[in-house]
């Protein structure tokens, strides 16, 4: 940009909400290596890994993605005390892990794998490193406003998950999207086409809106994605695209 030349923009096939085998409801097959293979099959350029209340598998998926030319951003899908799901997505792994520590500070209880599912920490070679003992499926003690503020303090983007969904979607839980909540955007599930989102859900208003797979199984990867026009597959470029600045934009 300092050269004064215009940025070269291109379209990135993006899915900012994929779970791994670390989420209790995530399938055992959702290992870092398998996820990246499925993303290659789906021709995705850019993904974010957002497990429930944790980011412990994001480093492994990112390293595996680097081997195969897929950009992986580290994130979390946090459950607020209002039982609303909200994505926090970062550029730097250390910021995601700092967010994770803050989330863990508000998360009580121990997982019961036979009830809620196994929570597998894995590496990029598909090896099991251990199980996360926390109750990752639970709600944190953190309110939505605090979660958005903490995400921004760590240079992350804050997106309200699957706002069309009855379970843990913000509109169902809170009746409407709090007007003062400083979200960077909202996500709709694969069940609604992105171009129909605002008419189907007038509550979205003029907030930036994307769609993602919310994949818990390998077969889910690719069922929804968003095309972003940007200069590079980075978080700051995603921010520009969400806001429609500098020629960046949400295409479809």
């Amino acid at each position, binding site marked *: 940009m300092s050269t004064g030349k215009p940025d070269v923009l291109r379209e990135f096939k993006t899915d900012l909400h994929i779970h791994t085998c670390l989420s209790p409801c995530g399938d055992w097959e959702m290992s870092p290596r398998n996820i990246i293979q499925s993303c290659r099959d789906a021709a995705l350029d850019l993904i974010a890994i957002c497990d429930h209340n944790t980011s412990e598998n994001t480093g492994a998926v990112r390293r595996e993605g680097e081997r195969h030319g897929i950009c992986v951003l580290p994130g979390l899908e946090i459950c607020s*005390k*209002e*039982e609303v799901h909200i994505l926090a997505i970062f550029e730097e792994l250390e910021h995601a892990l700092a967010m994770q520590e803050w989330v863990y500070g508000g998360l009580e209880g121990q997982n019961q794998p036979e009830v809620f599912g196994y929570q597998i920490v894995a590496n990029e070679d598909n090896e099991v490193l251990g199980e996360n003992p926390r109750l990752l499926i639970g709600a944190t003690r953190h*309110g*939505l*406003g605090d979660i958005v503020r903490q995400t921004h303090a760590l240079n992350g983007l804050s997106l309200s998950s699957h706002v069309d969904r009855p379970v843990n979607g913000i*509109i*169902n*839980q*809170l*009746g*409407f999207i*709090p007007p*003062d909540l400083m979200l960077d955007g909202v996500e709709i599930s694969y069940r609604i086409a992105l171009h129909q989102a605002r008419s189907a859900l007038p509550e979205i208003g003029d907030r930036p809106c994307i769609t993602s797979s919310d994949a818990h199984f390998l077969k889910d990867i690719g069922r929804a994605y968003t095309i972003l026009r940007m200069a590079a597959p980075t978080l700051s470029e995603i921010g520009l695209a969400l806001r429609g600045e500098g020629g960046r934009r949400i295409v479809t």
Partner: protein
Amino acid sequence: MRVRELVEGFNLKVIAGELGLDREVKGGYCGDLLSDVMAKAPVGCIWMTVQGHLNIVAVAVLREMAAIVITGGREPDVETVQKADQEQLPVLTSPFSAFELAGRLYALGVGAGRTP
């Protein structure tokens, strides 16, 4: 029955909206999904919920409620208290669950005889 009488009778703690304590209670509702409460809560009700988010004030104003009780020992957010004071909407807390409190209110005649 006035909100004030229920505060005294059930030892509810007044967190906000003290100026609204003379509102009349015409019924009751329990719910934590605000979309459901927005659609169904009867006008003039006392609403029992575990939600403490600012949005509960908007929902209560929309449904012209008498008061909100946050149950189970939970507390409202700071912004909720400020907004409820502005709206003169009583926000009360109770260590009882919604089930226990609603049972006692119903036995007193609050909302009794109503059909869904």
